[in-house]
């Protein structure tokens, strides 16, 4: 029995479920909202089941079994898988190189002028500028960066590496700055007040507290980079994605099946490694 359905007994509906009118109103409103959604997305699921579409899909899916396991295709897949990992790693490394200085500039924990109360206008403007730059870097999705770089440097892994470096640089920089600001400020402030430089204050005040968290976030982002480097391949940035895209266009179901399996395995492996490492750090 469900609240709101007609009661079998003689007692009025309101007595059984005091909220029934509200529930009914919400149901009607949500149905009204759903209709334009279906309209806008051209959502016509019956199209999936008309005979022509079914024939193509069935043919494609039938090709999945057995997955392609010829030696030279497997060799290609292995090479492209390594390229995917390499693009992700190189991109994440460059992102780290971009993020570290920006996080140091952006974090308020290393401000000398704020020791005496409010941060001075110049440093405040500089910090806000660094933050705005990081927002701009990470707001543009990596796929769009990749599309743009493919136009500039041509097809190939360079576009993928640059796209990951820019987007992930923005994300890492923001989170690094937040991690540094969430540390206990006392050691840093003491060091700065006694005349140490900002870098010294960072290395001896902030880094010892924040190192595990910073490393673990960087590893987590590396894992995410592997996932997005596959996706970037679809716009021509090399690796497993590009190979999958061309197999899809040729409707070669058996090749797609192999690559999907390899990809799921790769993601699971990266997930396991990253979780293992992060637990190890704690």
């Amino acid at each position: 029995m469900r609240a709101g359905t007609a009661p079998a007994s003689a007692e009025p509906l309101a007595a059984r479920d005091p909220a029934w009118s509200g529930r009914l109103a919400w149901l009607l409103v949500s149905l009204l909202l759903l209709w334009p959604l279906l309209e806008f997305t051209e959502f016509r699921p019956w199209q999936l089941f008309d005979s022509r579409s079914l024939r193509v899909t069935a043919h494609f899916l039938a090709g999945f079994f057995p997955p392609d396991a010829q030696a030279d295709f497997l060799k290609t897949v292995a090479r492209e898988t390594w390229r995917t990992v390499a693009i992700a790693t190189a991109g994440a490394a460059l992102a780290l190189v971009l993020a570290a200085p920006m996080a140091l500039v952006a974090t308020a924990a290393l401000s000398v002028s704020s020791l005496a109360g409010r941060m001075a206008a110049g440093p405040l403007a500089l910090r806000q500028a660094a933050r705005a730059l990081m927002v701009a870097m990470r707001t543009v999705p990596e796929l769009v960066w990749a599309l743009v770089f493919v136009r500039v440097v041509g097809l190939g892994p360079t576009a993928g590496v640059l796209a990951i470096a820019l987007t992930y640089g923005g994300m890492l920089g923001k989170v690094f700055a937040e991690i540094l600001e969430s540390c206990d400020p006392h050691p840093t402030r003491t060091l700065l007040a006694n005349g140490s430089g900002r870098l010294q204050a960072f290395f001896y005040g902030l880094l010892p507290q924040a190192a595990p968290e910073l490393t673990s976030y960087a590893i987590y982002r590396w894992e995410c980079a592997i996932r997005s480097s596959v996706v970037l391949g679809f716009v021509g940035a090399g690796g497993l994605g590009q190979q999958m895209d061309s197999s899809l266009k040729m409707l070669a179901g058996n090749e797609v099946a192999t690559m999907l399996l390899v990809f799921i395995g790769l993601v699971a492996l990266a997930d396991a490694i990253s979780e293992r490492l992060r637990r190890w750090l704690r």
Partner: protein
Amino acid sequence: MSRAPGVPARVAPPSQLLAARVRAAWLLLAACALIVASFWSLDLQWRALFSQDSAHAMARFVAEFFPPDASPPFVRKVARATLETAAMSALGTLLAMLFGLLLALPAARTHARALWRVPTRLLLNALRAVPELVWASLMLIAAGLGPMAGTLALALHTTGVLGRLFAEAIENAPPGPACALRAQGARPAQVLLYATLPQVAPQLLSYSLYRWENNIRAASILGVVGAGGLGQLLAFHLGLFQMARTATVLLAMLVLVLAVDGASYWARRAMTS
């Protein structure tokens, strides 16, 4: 130097500190090896990127973006694509909530036997492991070009994510009310409707809202493979080198992402304070 009374002789025993440093050194070494191998094996075209030619090409490329095309018919087209993107993300998330809940019940320990749990978990993991964009290009074959493929792709990936989160939420619900109903002889469906679901509903809703936020961002790029929304316009005009129009689409994309970020930040602030 004499030590003040009460201050411990050392912060950590040296063996522990040494172990931590050895660990850090191994990690650093492995990371460096991986990074060097990556850069070495990829034929990156730094020379092409930093050459005079490419600087000129880049400058020309950026200059072509300005001014963005602001003619009313095109702006109307972009606005429609933006709405389409929002609708794709909303419908995809709704479908995923539905199917996520349906799959979470057999995946959760509370309501199912192990016979069902293992295959459902495998299915959820597989749905989750394949990114939205890959699902979208698979869906294109069955659903054809257009926003329905994108909606289905979002729904498939999000079902995997939400199904797992829902299953965990259901497993972690306090067992008291369910036990009480069972002791009174309620059937499993009644226990689910009147004990478990009301307890976890707020958590399920907040997970879904969080995924919706993610999906708006994902939906705006899915179209790059032809699955509707802003991405499709972007790929189309970029492919034809119509840079002014591309710039308008890019701006719409950025506004959408920033608006979602702002709304979610504001909503979080409003809910926590």
